[in-house]
């Protein structure tokens, strides 16, 4: 009877925000510009959490739209991670 979607979306948002924060601190410490990729990736993850929260509370979003939104953000996140691995 638990509306699990609420738990998931809240947990994702908190974890993503924490990891973005850690990445930003890592950048400040090392001044390695590539770490910005990681911070951005986790930041987009956080944005995804926010958008899913909005979709959950603001009302109906079709399965197709949800799929496209989620998939697009996942693509951006993975592209950022991949870009990070390409650094010299």
């Amino acid at each position, binding site marked *: 009877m638990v509306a699990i979607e609420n738990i998931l979306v809240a947990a994702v948002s908190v974890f993503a925000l924490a990891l973005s924060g850690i990445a930003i601190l*890592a950048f400040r410490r090392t001044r390695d510009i590539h770490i910005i990729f990681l911070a951005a990736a986790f930041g987009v993850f956080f944005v995804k959490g926010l958008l899913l929260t909005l979709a959950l509370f603001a009302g109906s979003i079709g399965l197709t739209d949800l799929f496209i939104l989620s998939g697009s953000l996942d693509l951006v996140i993975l592209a950022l991670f991949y870009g*990070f691995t390409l650094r010299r």
Partner: protein
Amino acid sequence: MDEEVLAVKTRKDLYDFVRTNPGFHLREVARALNLSITLADYHLRFLEKHELITSSMDGEYKRFYPRSIPGGANERPALTDLEKQILAFLRQPVPLRILAFLMEREAATHKEILEHTPVSASTLSHHLKKIQGAGLVEHPEPREHGYRVSDPKAIARIMATYELATPDQIDTFIRVWGEFRL
């Protein structure tokens, strides 16, 4: 903690002890800090070589004294840009290990450093490049001789004066993601 980093800590303890208890001789210093005579001697000689302490013979005893630093022995002096840079590197676990390792030797090749540092070759190259770029380490001709520290005294002074933190969550993040490369 590996040998070199432990050495840094031991040396700092010795330096602090000499500063607060000037005039003690070798055996007393060793006993006070629970070190073997040999080890204490080795580290004290390192500190003396890098002009952080000085010694004088008093009969058969060699006594150790702090070297006076402008601004007072107990104050931390204002840092120059170079010193700030050194500190920044020393606060990161991998550069700390590299510098601590190089401080013990005249020079070391990439391969030798790699044996003592728990990272991949490409990560080591990345860090060496950064440290070299900051001017802390040089890689002079002939290249086969390897890398060496540019200004050991400055680094030794910073190592002895400041707390070098054990890695925190941010450091772990940096180290782990540092390996995440093609």
